[in-house]
């Protein structure tokens, strides 16, 4: 009887829920976006674990593992995205947890977003992204629209 990877299994039965860790990394406190997204995901049936403000990459990865989430949604507005998000990916790899999806939002210029996706971030949602787009992304099993 094999224990399947959660996301790879893809199937969500009556008792199963997507679990997503949402958090703010970096020092800024702009949590409007991450809270609105958390509520929208809850309304879409997702179990959201909100880790709060000023999480370091180390804290994010540890919490994601303890909570056994399918994905991590990071929000940041401080301009530190090119330092902090790659660090999260690196730590996930070190912990042999690269199957945990990482997606992001906040003020992230387009060329940086492209670079982050190249590094393995599943999607970057900039300002003006509709909540529906984020919910659909989760419901597709954290994959970009075709």
């Amino acid at each position, binding site marked *: 009887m094999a224990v399947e990877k959660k996301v790879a299994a893809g199937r969500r039965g009556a008792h199963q829920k997507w679990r997503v860790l949402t958090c703010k990394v970096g020092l800024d406190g*702009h949590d409007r976006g991450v809270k*609105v997204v958390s*509520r929208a995901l*809850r309304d879409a049936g997702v179990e959201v674990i909100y880790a709060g403000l000023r999480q370091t990459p180390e804290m994010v990865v540890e919490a994601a593992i303890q909570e056994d989430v399918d994905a991590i949604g990071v929000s940041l507005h401080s301009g530190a995205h090119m330092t902090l998000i790659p660090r999260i990916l690196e730590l996930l790899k070190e912990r042999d947890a690269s199957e945990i999806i990482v997606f992001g939002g906040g003020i992230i210029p387009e060329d940086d977003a492209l670079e982050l996706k190249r590094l393995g971030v599943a999607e970057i949602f900039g300002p003006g992204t509709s909540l*529906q787009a984020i919910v659909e992304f989760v419901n597709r099993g954290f994959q970009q629209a075709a």
Partner: protein
Amino acid sequence: MAVRKKSSREEWEEQSQAGKQPARGRGRTISGMPIEPLYTPDDLRGWSYEEKLGYPGHFPYTRGVYHSMYRGRPWTIRQFAGYGTAEETNRRYKFLLSQGQAGLSVAFDMPTLMGYDSDDPLSRGEVGHCGVAIDSLEDMETLFGGIRLDTITTSMTINSPAAILYAMYIAVGEKSGVKPAQLGGTLQNDILKEYIAQKEYIFPPEPSMRLVVDTIVFAAREMPRWNPVSISGYHIREAGSTAIQELAFTLADGMAYVEATIKAGMPVDDFAPRLSFFFDSHIDFFEEIAKFRAARRLWAHIMRDRYQAKDPRSWILRFHTQTAGVSLTRQQVENNISRTAYEALAAVLGGTQSLHTNSMDEVLALPTERAAQIALRTQQVLAHETGVTETIDPLAGSYYLEHLTDEMERGARRYFERVDEQGGVLACIENGFFQREIADAAFEFERQLEANERIVVGVNAYQEKEGSPVPTLKIGRETEQGQVRRVKAVRERRDNTSVQNRLVELKVAARGSQNLMPALIDCVRAYATEGEIMAALKEVFGVYREPILF
């Protein structure tokens, strides 16, 4: 039975319903207040000019806080700027001053705002990104190098560590022979809205309030040209609140500062004239103008009636305005120029004392020089070409605007009652009342957008295929590395015994109840870094953790 003749109003109503284009639109302000298709004298029944408006510079100041308003002197163009190192920002300041700007407005980077030195591990990747990095007095000396501090006013956007940066500014003045009494400017220093909205708190509310009161008392005694606190609705609004919430929570915060300072033993008229405010100007044009006018009227009544202030200068609400960052869109970035222009117009029609207009690209990254220039020019066009400065409070008497102003006031008063019922501002922060109200409003706004009940051009209507990326300003890693080297060098160069002793003296003072400003000034003079001073205070005060609310 004789048929009653239709009134002209009834006639209009029938026509407007039957016409090919019946009155339409969403029929609600962003705050959710219903909007009628038409306002008439009926909406102002019993309304008294003397009671509601009065004359400019007269109680209740609805029409403006000064007698001549912009006829006498236009508003102050005050563009918020700062990035990278103190040296780079200093060059930008000199450029802005040469372009006709009258005052400086300092943006600090996140580590400075959160009280960490540039070489702290938590500062990784953030040094110099959203503003200028200041670690010690040395950086502050560089920042204002070659600028005569007695000829300008400086606004500093900083909160938890505000007292430290204030002390540094005083020390920079001293070194160039400018006395504290000659320094003019504003410290944001509004910690309450940090717990409510912006979340850049460090200490628990009580010691934080003490620091604010200490700066208010110090300024009242030593620095008559200084505004020690800028009570801010801007961040409350940007966090997603409605206009009424912004108005109500900001004034409630103002009352909390007044009460705390009175409790510390200072008579209200000794400090109240130096309190200033800071509001957002959002895209809902008339509602914003009404908000500014209602704010003045409310504050005048609060100060005179609730706190028995006798000095008319204590009654007036002076404010700075910034256009709404959240109203900017990533899509079709150039549209942000027109949004900002309308918002600036609302602020001016609302009687602001100073104004910052956002750059169109701020939604993407730090503004480029070109975008910052356009934002500045937007205000200059408004001031010199449109004629808005020619007459005072030109919209007064508008049935709609006066109705809306009354409604804003009523809505705010309802919130004051709810805050009082719950035991005041600190109790409402602790139980999460403000935070919950704002989160609900933010969520409702997003929902309306999703449901297309509200149109945002380029986002859910008139979309275009994404064009080529707009050039943005990037801060290189060299900035961080250079700043880390600088702060380490300062620590080696200074007299570390003296630093150690000043920090201990600060801790001792913090354990008691005396004013902390003198001890802070001593610390910065000895080149203690911001991070070291904050660490000392954290030892005494502890740190705050937010209540969890959704």
